[in-house]
């Protein structure tokens, strides 16, 4: 009987895993099949023409990369500060759990709410109008919990013996932070950022009111009234208007590129994640 239950459990688990893989595989298959024909060198290097029915997605790709880079640069220092605060300065478990709960709460905020918040505060109140910086900052808020928690986990994994050894040599607390804590945890920052950015890359809601327009933008040269094009917004607009078969193929092509971008970000995070696991087991 017990053997039978074991077998059934294994079978169910196996079936679920297979279902998840099949869903992923099916998704990728459909997008590659429909979007593949649209992919060409020109699709990456040309700009949008005929309201998306012709041309490429050059500025959309650049715009998305600008937003992601801004989000990374804005979130990294705050994540470092928060994670160090938790590891070094907060002494009581209560204050630490308040910080962590706050982060999880931010993580749970719907992205559309971030979008509205950015619209009210940055676009209207600061008077930036639609701006790449507003979008980048809002995306930074979206990914901040992911980055911070990843960095906290990495900091927590640093054995206390390193801190002790460094202190025993006479290093001050700030020297220990630089030489031991940050030196050994930057992988967590990179991993967390890549995973956060992989999620942020596809978000429309945080940037649609704050940073991105459908057509007519190139490289931003200022902060105010300097929107960018972006991939997810491009897909969002084309999807509402895809009766034209020309638009349809461009739509799927854009989706394929976005999927490729997200996968590459996740894959880029893989080596450091694997290394962290290895160190955790052998360290």
């Amino acid at each position, binding site marked *: 009987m017990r053997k039978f239950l074991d077998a059934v459990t294994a079978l169910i688990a196996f079936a679920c895993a297979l279902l998840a893989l099949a869903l992923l595989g099916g998704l990728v298959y459909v997008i590659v099949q429909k979007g593949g024909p649209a992919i060409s060198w020109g699709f990456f290097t040309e700009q949008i023409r005929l309201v998306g029915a012709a041309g490429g997605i050059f500025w959309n790709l650049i715009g998305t990369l600008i937003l992601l880079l801004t989000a990374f640069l804005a979130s990294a220092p705050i994540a470092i500060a928060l994670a160090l605060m938790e590891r070094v300065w907060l*002494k009581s478990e209560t204050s630490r759990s308040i910080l962590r709960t706050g982060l999880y709460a931010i993580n749970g905020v719907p992205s559309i709410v971030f979008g509205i918040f950015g619209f009210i505060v940055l676009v209207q109140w600061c008077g930036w109008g639609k701006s790449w910086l507003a979008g980048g900052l809002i995306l930074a808020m979206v990914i901040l919990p992911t980055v911070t928690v990843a960095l906290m986990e990495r900091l927590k994994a640093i054995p206390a*013996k*390193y*801190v*002790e*050894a*460094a*202190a*025993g*040599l*006479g*290093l*001050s607390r700030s*020297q220990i932070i630089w*030489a*031991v804590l940050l030196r*050994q945890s930057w992988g967590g920052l990179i991993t967390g950022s890549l995973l956060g950015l992989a999620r942020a890359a596809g978000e429309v809601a945080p940037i649609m009111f704050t940073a991105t327009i459908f057509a007519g933008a190139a490289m931003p040269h200022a902060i105010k009234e300097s929107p960018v094009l972006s991939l997810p917004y491009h897909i969002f607009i084309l999807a509402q208007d895809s009766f034209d078969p020309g638009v349809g193929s461009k739509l799927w092509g854009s989706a394929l590129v976005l999927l490729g971008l997200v996968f590459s970000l996740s894959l880029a995070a893989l080596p450091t994640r694997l290394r962290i696991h290895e160190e955790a087991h052998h360290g």
Partner: protein
Amino acid sequence: MDKRPNILQTSQLSVSVPSRTLVRDVTVGITENQVFGLIGPSGAGKSTVLRALNRMTDLVPGLKVTGDVQLHGRSIFAPGTDANALRAKVGMLFQQPVVFPASIVDNVLFGARRLQSLSKSVQAELAESALQEAALWSEVKDRLKAPAAKLSVGQQQRLCLARALATKPEVILMDEPTSALDPRSTEAIEALIKRLKSRHTIVLVTHNLRQARNVGDQLAFIGVRDGVGQLLCEGTVESVLNRTDVAEVDEYVCCQ
């Protein structure tokens, strides 16, 4: 009695955590250029006393140190004392070698390079002299840039010693430095300890009587009485180990 001055002097040193006292009223004088051994059963507080000597106890939240420790006659707990500068002068070697995930040379200079700005050539000289002093130079001189983790555990422990030596400490605190090592590496460390005392003062926690006899000049026995760790006797190695009138010492010596 030795006429050289005491470099370290503890008076009524006690360490406690909120729920209980770990070790109470330890008063010992440690003479310069000697190996001062702290022996006693596990859990009696030898390591705790050792860590109070360079205020490593500060790093443990909730640990309370009372009494005093004087280095060259000046209290290390006096207001305005720089605990970090103290730890550079009173260095530490731990039970398990702790090498940083970096190259051999980066490990040697880990502390020294951050405590003062050193030119590249001075750094190279310092690394060599520290490794020489720790008897590791000949084994690693061709692979200074190799990861320190590749060394054997015994070599890693000598690397940690070199790293402490590079900050030019007067006193080196050693917390059972050979308990993780094989007999040959242990021998190497013991030979080193005997050599190092010509220029440094060494306080050695050990649970190994053979080691205490081999390298120690003075001994203090810390045992548990009434549930609290305390100094039960001190003196030269043989005088302490022959104190059969102290029941705890007798039992400890017999059992080894």
